[in-house]
Structures are given as structure tokens and as C-alpha cells.
């Protein structure tokens, strides 16, 4: 008995001594530390310092709070939907510099559990640089910077380090929303309050936003299993979020299942879906979507879950030995009212009895907090909720930004546009676009349109789906800006496929460039304009009828005279024509 006690005392004492010794650095003297270790340590310290500066502590009073991460110097920061929902549209945010900032809610993606907020008062906020989440592999060092258990009362973030445990994880929706697709799984401690904070790689690059963890028997504390929304998904939604929208996720209009031999095949498909119109049928094998391979049902859900509704992406499918590649438009997952109800909290996510509960979202609330009575003036000035939007103010900001880019870019002349050339298929063409008349001469005949009236019946030239109307709206946008285009909003960003100068393998890349998109509801039609970095309109989708295929116009970037040298027009899977525009003068 006495012996055992003595032994324990000796052990305890020795442990204490050992700790003291190590702290003193005498046991493994500083000289003995490998240079590589010191270099690695210095790198880690620098990464954590950089990342800490971008970490946002969000406080929502009694409703809790969470974390965020700054991604733009003018104050835009990413966080979780389930963090801002209880916080409401106005919040106070702390940074590592020890200062508090007013912040306003900008955009929401409730399905993906993402929110964009904007900190006010500076245009030189430190920002996190996006990493490539597709390059992350299990075992990579990673760390989270955030506000676990709302400990950051001094506003400085807590850091928890770990490794990436798994990639491309799929986590079922908690209730009806908050589906985590293609997420990163980490053993770095993710606790309640870490939600919305950044997950960083060894170099301090942002590879994800933490938001969820598997909890079980010990209650809501970390058990080595946390999940982060991938940087890929965040980048793909960032444009729409910046536009102050209430963003929805997508459906293909088809479900898939594993066949007996392990292929991923279409198990059900809506005949009203774009995929059906592009030729996809029951039992077709899905090979890839949006340039990413689909080998399992989870992989399909992972790819789809990272895509915003409305994007047009490549789909490769196989039927027997026949392989087909089409561009398919993704439909919204929810009706707009349904999405709004989820945000407001009217619709409570139901957790069915068959749903195991190991997965939970830290601090998930039920209702959206209303704006406070005493909203600071600076926040009030940038807060404009409207149906269909999270904060319409920012939609105007983005729309005006794109409009300014268009106005500053090389444009066709203000007078009548007259140009001609040859069709890649065969024969010549002439096009004239003016404020009062739009005409096109093709080998098959001449079509004209008076662009001043309603355009919803303007399907000419036959088979184009409304090319004349698209040309008319292109001119209006180019000469008069969005003001001449009825109700125009900033739609977000999207890839654009099938442009005249696009490389042949453009559909094979999983990370196509993203272009700004404006959407106009004008003269009875709906049009989306794709605008490149230089402010050039390089794509137009025009719907005469919401349920039919749009006319798709793809324009090469403008030459010196402001006109594109090539224009591709198609409708659905059917090419209409490729116009090769003859340089200045020749066609006049």
C-alpha cells in the first residue's frame, strides 16, 4: 500500500519535473532542434498569424454567435447560414486587431449553409486567399481559426490544428436543408462557435468554411470529426451571394442509383427537365457532370451539391456503347417561396424517425431574427431586404459595377450596327441592328423585327428561338446600359460554354472561368447576359417562354471596331448558325 502510494508520488513529481525541464528547453536544447523543424514551425506560426487576421468573431447576443472569414478587402466575409440566422441582418463582428465592426448580411445560401456578410468601415481588411480544395488530400495539415464556445471575448480567434481526415465527403441534409456535399472532413477540433470560420491549409490558404461536426454520446463537443464546406463550393456561390441574392442549389431533374455492376445510372427523370430535353433517359449511365467524374451515387450528389441553380454545365452520359456529351441547365431545388420560408424559419426542418442523429449542426436555430429597432445608421444605409433577395442593396451595387464595366469597355458604335460575313455552314449573312429595326439576311431568307414593342412572340429567324430579339437587347444593354432594359438584376457568376474561341476541351475542366451575369425581364422576355472581365458581353440566353429552350448566343470578344468576329447561335442541342463577321467595311 505504502509502496504504491510512494510510487505514485514519485511518478507525479517526475512528470512535473519533466514538464518544467522541457519548458526550459534544457532536455532537448535549442541547438539540438533540427533546422527543418524550426523552419516548419516558423511557417506554421506565419500561416496562423495570417489566417488569424482574417478570422471574424460574430456575436449575436443571447442568440449565440459564431465565426466568419474575410475574403475581400472591402469587408466581405463568409460564414454559415445557421450562424447569421439567429444573428439577423445586422451584427457586430470582432477581428484579431481587437476592434469591433458593424456588419450587414449580404447573401444567403440556406441549402449549402453559407452566408456572406460585409464588415463596414474599412476597405483594407486583411483577407484570406482561396486554396484549391480539390488538391487537398487525407493527411494534409490543416487548422481552424474561429470562435469556439464564443471564447473570443478579446475578439482574437482560437486555433485548432489537425489533419484532413477525408475529402469529398457527403453529409445528408440535417432535416430538409443544410446538405453538406463534397465537404472536407477534419480532426481539427470543430466545436459549437467554430461554425462559419475558416479552415486553412499549411500555408494559411482558405480551403473551406467549418460548419458541422458529428456528435454523439458526449453531447455537443468535438469528437475528432468535423466538416468544412469546400473552397470550390464557396467560390462557385460567391458571385450570387455578393449580389445579395437568396441563392438556391440545383437539381438535374433526374435521380441516379448504383446498378448491379457498379455503374451510376439514371433511376428516374422528369420529362420537363432540361436533361430530358438534352436526351438523357432512364438507365443511361452518368459518366461525368460539370467536368468531374461520377463513379458513385455520392460522387454525383457531391458534384451537383456544389453547383448553383441555373448554371449550364457539361453532362457526359453513356447508353450502351454510345457516349454523349451535352450542356444541361440545372433547375432550382426549391420554389422561391419555399426557400424564403426556410430562411424565415416558418418551415422547420423535420427530422424523421428513421434519421440517426449523430450529425448535428452546432447551435442551429429555428427562425431568422428580425432586424433590430436600433440598427446603426451605417448598417441601415446598406440594408434593403426584398422578396427574392437577402439584401437588394448589394444587388444594385453589383449590377452597377457590371454596367460600369460594360460602359467602359470597347463597344459597337452608337449608330446603327451593320455588319455581314459568311456562315461557317455555307453562304453569306447580313445583320442590321438599330433602335427601331433589327434585321437579318440569311441564305434561307430575311427576317425583321421592330424592337420597340413586346418581344415574346419574336421567334425569328425561324429555328433560332429569338435571335433578332437577343440582338436587339444586346444593343440596348451596350448603348443604354441596364437602365434601358426593364427590370435588370445582378444574377451572379456562371461559366459559359460553347463560345466561338473556346478550346475544344473546355468541357473537360472542372474549374471553368466564371463570368458576371445580368438578368433582365424586359418586353415579355427573359434574358441573361454574360459579361467578361473586360466588360464585353460574350453571351446571351434569351427565353421567349420560360418552359422552352432559350436562344443561346455566344460572342467572341470584340475586335477594334467593337464587334465580335464570330457569333455562335444554338438552341438546345441544335446549332442554328456560326456567323463569321468580316472585318470593318467589307460587309457594309
Amino acid at each position: 500500500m505504502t509502496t504504491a502510494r510512494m510510487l505514485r508520488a514519485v511518478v507525479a513529481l517526475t512528470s512535473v519535473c519533466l514538464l518544467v525541464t522541457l519548458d526550459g528547453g534544457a532536455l532537448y536544447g535549442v541547438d539540438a532542434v533540427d533546422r527543418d523543424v524550426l523552419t516548419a514551425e516558423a511557417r506554421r506560426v506565419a500561416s496562423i498569424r495570417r489566417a488569424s487576421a482574417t478570422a471574424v468573431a460574430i456575436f449575436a447576443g443571447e442568440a449565440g454567435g459564431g465565426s466568419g472569414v474575410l475574403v475581400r478587402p472591402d469587408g466581405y466575409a463568409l460564414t454559415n447560414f445557421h450562424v447569421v440566422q439567429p444573428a439577423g441582418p445586422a451584427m457586430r463582428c470582432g477581428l484579431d486587431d481587437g476592434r469591433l465592426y458593424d456588419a450587414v448580411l449580404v447573401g444567403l445560401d440556406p441549402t449549402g449553409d453559407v452566408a456572406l456578410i460585409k464588415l463596414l468601415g474599412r476597405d483594407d481588411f486583411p483577407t484570406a486567399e482561396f486554396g484549391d480544395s480539390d488538391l487537398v488530400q487525407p493527411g494534409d495539415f490543416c487548422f481552424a481559426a474561429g470562435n469556439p464556445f464564443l471564447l473570443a471575448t478579446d475578439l482574437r480567434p482560437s486555433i485548432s490544428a489537425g489533419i484532413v481526415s477525408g475529402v469529398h465527403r457527403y453529409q445528408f441534409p440535417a432535416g430538409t436543408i443544410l446538405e453538406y456535399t463534397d465537404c472536407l472532413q477534419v480532426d481539427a477540433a470543430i466545436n459549437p462557435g467554430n461554425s462559419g470560420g475558416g479552415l486553412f491549409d499549411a500555408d494559411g490558404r482558405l480551403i473551406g468554411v467549418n460548419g458541422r461536426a458529428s456528435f454523439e454520446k458526449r453531447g455537443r463537443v468535438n469528437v475528432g470529426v468535423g466538416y468544412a464546406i469546400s473552397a470550390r463550393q464557396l467560390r462557385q456561390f460567391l458571385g450570387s451571394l455578393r449580389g445579395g441574392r437568396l441563392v438556391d442549389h440545383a437539381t438535374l431533374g433526374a435521380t441516379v442509383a448504383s446498378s448491379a455492376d457498379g455503374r451510376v445510372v439514371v433511376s428516374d427523370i422528369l420529362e420537363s427537365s432540361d436533361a430530358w430535353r438534352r436526351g438523357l433517359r432512364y438507365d443511361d449511365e452518368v459518366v461525368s457532370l460539370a467536368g468531374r467524374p461520377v463513379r458513385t451515387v455520392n460522387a454525383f450528389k457531391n458534384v451537383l451539391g456544389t453547383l448553383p441553380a441555373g448554371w449550364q454545365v457539361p453532362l457526359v452520359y453513356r447508353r450502351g456503347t454510345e457516349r454523349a456529351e451535352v450542356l444541361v441547365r440545372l433547375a432550382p431545388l426549391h420554389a422561391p417561396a419555399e426557400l424564403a420560408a426556410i430562411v424565415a424559419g416558418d418551415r422547420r426542418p423535420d427530422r424523421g424517425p428513421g434519421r440517426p442523429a449523430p450529425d448535428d449542426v452546432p447551435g442551429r436555430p429555428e427562425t431568422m431574427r428580425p432586424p433590430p429597432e436600433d440598427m446603426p445608421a451605417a448598417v441601415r444605409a446598406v440594408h434593403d431586404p426584398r422578396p427574392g433577395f437577402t439584401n437588394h442593396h448589394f444587388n444594385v451595387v453589383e449590377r452597377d459595377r457590371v454596367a460600369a464595366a460594360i460602359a467602359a469597355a470597347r463597344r459597337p458604335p452608337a449608330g446603327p450596327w451593320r455588319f455581314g460575313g459568311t456562315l461557317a455552314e455555307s453562304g453569306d449573312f447580313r445583320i442590321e441592328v438599330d433602335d427601331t429595326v433589327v434585321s437579318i439576311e440569311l441564305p434561307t431568307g430575311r427576317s425583321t423585327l421592330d424592337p420597340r414593342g413586346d418581344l415574346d412572340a419574336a421567334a425569328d429567324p425561324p429555328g433560332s428561338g429569338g435571335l433578332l430579339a437577343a440582338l436587339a437587347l444586346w444593343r440596348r444593354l451596350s448603348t443604354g446600359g441596364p437602365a434601358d432594359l426593364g427590370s435588370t438584376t445582378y444574377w451572379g457568376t456562371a461559366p459559359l460554354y460553347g463560345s466561338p474561341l473556346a478550346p475544344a476541351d473546355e468541357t473537360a475542366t472542372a474549374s471553368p472561368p466564371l463570368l458576371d451575369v445580368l438578368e433582365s425581364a424586359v418586353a415579355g422576355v427573359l434574358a441573361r447576359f454574360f459579361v467578361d472581365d473586360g466588360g464585353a458581353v460574350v453571351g446571351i440566353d434569351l427565353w421567349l417562354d420560360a418552359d422552352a429552350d432559350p436562344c443561346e448566343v455566344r460572342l467572341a470578344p470584340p475586335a477594334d471596331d467593337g464587334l465580335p468576329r464570330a457569333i455562335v447561335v444554338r438552341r438546345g442541342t441544335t446549332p442554328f448558325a456560326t456567323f463569321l463577321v468580316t472585318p470593318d467595311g467589307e460587309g457594309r
Partner: protein
Amino acid sequence: MVVRCALRMPVGWTAVFATVSLTLAVCRADDADGVPQPQAAIARAARAVVKVYGSGGVRGLEGYQSGILVSPEGRILTAMSTVLDSADVECVLDDGTRHRATLLGADPRRELALLAIDATGLPSFALEPADAVPVGTRVIALSNLFAVAVGDERVSAQRGVISAIVPLQARRGAAEAPYAGDVYVLDCTTNNPGSAGGALVDSRGRLVGMLGKELRSTTSGIWLSYALPAAELVRGVAAIESGTIDAETVEDARPFDPGRVGAILVPDLLDRTPPFVEAVVRGSSAERAGLRPDDLVIAVAGRSVGTRGALQRELGRLPAAEPMRLSVIRDGAIVEIDLGPKPRVEERPRREDER
């Protein structure tokens, strides 16, 4: 010296050692030199970890766990559990292929089960007798925790450090774990649903142990993250394959009443009845070994016992061939008594008071 002490400390003391070993791991410069990045080790080792699906699915009783391939011919070692209480146990390999598994045998003491699937040329762990890795070793736990990975998705990786090597004193619900040998205690949380049967590997991807089941310490009540050392896996597989697992092994796990060798203890009337010897049967092994009435047993094979129940449990855990070495207090001094191995059949000496 310190580490040697740590080896014999009960689980309740591991917190102290976790701190020490963590500090050691961080400070050891030589670890960083020449140790490959964990990514490669994970990628290699995870190929030999399988997802096991069987019976269960009700709350608190999951229908899935993990397993490790221990031969290229489809031998899979996993934790013996209710998941295997099914004629329909399925193993999903790293490449996503699914295989019906048959149960070859089980080691009830170590709670190991050996499965077979019909496949060849599989990536597998070498299961060889190996020395225990020291406290402070960096390890990676690979398992299908929470069944996060399905199909060909790679099992989850967690990093950790071996915090202590201690005898397991744990229970599941009210039942004590039958295994009471040394385990690796880990500083990362591996006692999650589905983790049991997963691989514990070193930074080069070599098998160090197998992740244990969800157990709580009998001392502190905390959930334990531990792994069965590779040497125990080797013994377990050998026992299963040679067919030497019999009822006796299971019985060993049950409390052993020293009355069976003639040491009559005081009646167990209190919650914590001290293990006093009340009487010694004449002519019994206990008498021959020198045990006397009023001796107070304080330890079995060096492990302290405070109650009659604990004494019987410790005796029950002793391997069949190991002698029952008791430390008793008699007249203020410690006396060592060797009762010899547990008898296979009941000793039937005539007792004085049996008349």
C-alpha cells in the same frame, strides 16, 4: 524509469501521461527528420482497411464497424461485436467492391473476430510479432467512423499520439471488458460509432494496433480511446486459426472465487467488502501456499485490489497458465503468496466445517 512506471499505472492516471507524452512528441526533433508525410502512409495503409456492415441500426447499436485485411487472401480481422451477429456480414474494400464475409472464428477474451472473404491479391497488413511501440509514438487511426465513407470512399484518418500503455480497466454499460491486458491509450477521439476494428498505424503506415470498442474507464467513467497492440492481434489470430480458443478462455474472463482453491473470503455483505481471508481449507492449495485466515489481500499479480469483488475479477482475468500471485498484509507486513495457476476442474478438498 518514468515510462516503466507509466506502463503499470491504471487508466485514471493517463491524463498526466498524456500531457507528458504530447510534450515529448512535440519536442522530439528526430521525429521530423526522415519521417515521411502522413499523406503517403494514409494512402497506403487505408487500402487495407475495410468497412464492415452487419446487424444493428438501432440507436446506440450501430450496424457498422471497421476491419483490417491481414492477408492478401481476404482474411479480415475486426472487433467481435453485435455487428457480426448476422448471417449477412458484408465487407466493402477500399476499391468499393463488396464481399460477403464468413466468420472463421473469434477470440472472446480479446474480442477479436476473423472474417474471410472470397478474394485474392488484396492489399493487407503484415501481421507479425512486434515489440510494443513506445509512449509518445505518433500514430494515425484509420476507420469508418460514423460510416462517413461509403463505397470506394477512403476511410477517415485521425492523427494522434500514444499517450500511455496501460492495462485496460473498462466496461461497456454494466459489463466489464473481458480483456484486461495492456492497451495503447490514444490522445485522439477514436471511441466513435464504427471505429472499432480500424487500424492504428505509425507514420510509415505500419500496423501498430487495432482500434478498440466504445468503452468507458471503470475508474473515471470517461470514454476511452484505445487500441489493442499488434502483438495481441498476432496472438488472437494464432489462437483463432489454431482452434485453441475454447470455453476456458471465456470462463477466464469471469470472476474467479479463490474458495475454489481453498481460500474462503469474508462474506460479501458490504458495497466494498475488503478482501479478508476468513478461513483456509485444510489440505487445499491455499493452505499449502501459506495463506492464513485474517490475511488481507491487497494485490493480485502486482495489481492492487481494494474489494472482494475486485479480487475475484482480477483473478478471473489472469491467463490460465499464469500463477495467482497474491500480496497480503499480515501483522503490518506484506507477504507474497503464490497460489499457482487456476485449476481447470474444481478442487474438492474436504472442508473442516463441511461435516
